[in-house]
């Protein structure tokens, strides 16, 4: 019994409800938020170390043992994701304290940001397929509110698309769950895995696997990413940063979970279908990142490229590649939050969105400029920064598996990322200044600090990769050996 496992979801939910009642006082909302977020990070660290000591831990809600009850499972993979998500959302929400309009703060901005975090953490921790659906919905409902909050013509048009596509994806999810339950008669992930292995992954189960693939591909922006650039570029900085850092990564996580734990029998689906989707995603993302001049669009297409890169790790399907993908997931959450906060800040400071309309910002906002440069290097995967280690392991895995084409596409995309980011940096920060020093909008230190801390985090993950390595290896060991996971869940009950 490990009640600590429910805290990453319980704490944000409770905070969200408390904030509802604190609506009149924005200051009280902020104090409660930051306290709750800091304890959330502390709890996540505790879970990570507990998993290290005790192995995979689980919590059966209400004492109902698996496979009958709903449960939360903590292994190194989910604990790492929860920790990263909590740390990133702490910094993003801390940034939003200073940048959010009063009008939105009064319309329940903070409660819904917390519900989003609760849904994300729940999705990482759950060990039950239907519960995964529920947590996805909690996360998506909160995101519907956040994306429409504040209104405006463009945003409402984009949010209609966003909501429509996600409702359709959720419906597919439900259908896939119904098929799965009808076929194997259980929703507990470990139990599903056992039964799928017993029955062999025949045509029916493979078809179900593909439906799940479509669902998660829609959520993660893998190949089916057409909705993503529009809806990620319309909301203000902090909301876009929360979306870019967390939402697609939950889809990627779910894909890794289902295809390493449950549907790992069919090589055609994993290597050919998922591999092809990853390549097409990267190519499409690269075209978008080069083609657009709107900095928010360029940033959104960078999200898509990263998703494709992580999924290459899944398509290669060996331990080295998994390791790379886990490192890259952690890195990507941090760096995308950083990128979207900087982009949001640039739009706020200049009032313009196109790279052709901005120049010489380095004279006005030097720290911001150098942070963007750091982000550029991190995204491209330059050695001391966090992106490098993930790219290296995915590369090693691809060489080991002989997937040289995937390797080439993955590494070629780094160059495109570097080019697209340098284009922003050179056009917007170099050249003649467009804003007078007297007229420039203030960018106070308290807004800069959360961004700078994210920058420190990305350097820290790169330099401290050695310290992270045991946790990541542990996560990868469970992915490569589903029996470890199954034993931890069903061991005592006996399948």
């Amino acid at each position, binding site marked *: 019994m490990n009640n600590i496992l429910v805290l990453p979801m319980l704490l944000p939910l*409770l905070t969200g409800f408390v904030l509802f009642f604190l609506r009149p006082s924005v200051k009280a909302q902020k104090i409660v938020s930051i306290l709750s977020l800091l304890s959330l990070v502390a709890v996540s660290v505790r879970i990570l170390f507990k998993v290290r000591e005790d192995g995979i831990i689980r919590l059966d809600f209400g004492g109902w043992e698996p496979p009958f009850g709903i449960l939360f499972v903590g292994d190194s993979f989910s604990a790492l994701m929860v920790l990263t998500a909590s740390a990133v959302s702490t910094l993003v929400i801390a940034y939003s304290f200073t940048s959010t309009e009063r009008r939105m703060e009064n319309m329940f901005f903070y409660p819904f940001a917390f519900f989003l975090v609760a849904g994300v953490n729940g999705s990482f921790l759950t060990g039950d397929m239907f519960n995964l659906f529920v947590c996805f919905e909690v996360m998506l409902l909160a995101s519907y509110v956040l994306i429409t909050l504040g209104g405006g013509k463009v945003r409402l048009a984009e949010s209609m698309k966003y909501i429509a596509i996600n409702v359709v994806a959720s419906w597919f999810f439900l259908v896939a769950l119904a098929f799965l339950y009808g076929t194997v008669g259980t929703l507990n992930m470990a139990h599903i895995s056992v039964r799928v292995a017993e029955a062999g992954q025949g045509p029916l189960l493979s078809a179900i696997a593909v439906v799940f693939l479509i669902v998660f591909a829609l959520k993660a922006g893998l190949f089916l990413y057409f909705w993503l650039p529009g809806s990620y570029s319309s909301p203000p900085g902090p909301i876009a940063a929360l979306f870019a850092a967390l939402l697609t990564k939950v889809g990627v996580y779910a894909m890794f979970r289902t295809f390493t734990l449950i549907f790992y029998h069919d090589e055609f689906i994993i290597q050919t279908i998922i591999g092809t989707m990853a390549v097409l995603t990267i190519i499409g993302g690269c075209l978008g990142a080069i083609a657009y001049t709107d900095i928010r669009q360029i940033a959104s297409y960078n999200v898509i490229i990263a998703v494709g890169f992580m999924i290459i790790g899944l398509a290669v399907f060996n331990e080295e590649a998994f390791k790379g993908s886990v490192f890259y997931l952690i890195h990507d959450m941090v760096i995308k939050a950083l990128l979207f906060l900087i982009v949001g800040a640039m739009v706020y400071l200049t009032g313009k969105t196109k790279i052709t309309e901005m120049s010489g910002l380095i004279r006005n906002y030097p720290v911001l400029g150098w942070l963007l440069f750091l982000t550029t290097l991190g995204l491209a995967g330059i050695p001391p920064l966090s992106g490098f280690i993930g790219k290296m392991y995915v590369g090693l895995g691809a060489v080991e598996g002989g997937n040289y084409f995937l390797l080439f596409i993955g590494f070629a995309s780094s160059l495109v990322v570097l080019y697209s980011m340098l284009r922003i940096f050179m056009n917007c920060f170099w050249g003649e200044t467009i804003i007078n020093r007297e007229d420039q909008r203030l960018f106070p230190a308290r807004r800069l600090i959360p961004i700078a801390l994210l920058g420190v985090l990305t350097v820290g993950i790169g330099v401290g990769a050695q310290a992270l390595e045991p946790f990541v290896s542990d996560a990868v060991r469970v992915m490569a050996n589903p029996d470890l996971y199954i034993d931890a869940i069903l061991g005592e009950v006996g399948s």
Partner: protein
Amino acid sequence: MKENDVILRTVTRVVVFIILTFGVELFLSGHHNPGGGFVGGLVLSSALVLLYVVFDIETVHQGVPFDFRKIAAFGAMISLLSGTAAAVLGKPFLTQGFGYFDLPIFGLTELATVTVFEAGVALTVIGTVVTIILSISKDV
């Protein structure tokens, strides 16, 4: 609706109480029979919605002066806290208990902590349904 709603108004005054009673009955019977917090909450909120339809929003607000968004948040919080109580007592999260008590009028009665959870669900449903109906009606 303005001229000819005497019958509607008179009937509503009686029917609302029947609906409310039915809602409570559904809520309580949910422990062993079909029913429970969600259905009970839906029926209870239908009584409120009927009131809003027949009388206008201001009149109903004089009688039921609550912010229904807060009721929804409060309900969800009760449900969560009832689960947390189990965790505080050292049981797995959401564990429920029950016992038999000899109460003055009712005699031997089964009391279960899951009722608290269900009450939270009911309040959430009421709050959400009424909020949705009110925000839709405002735009017209």
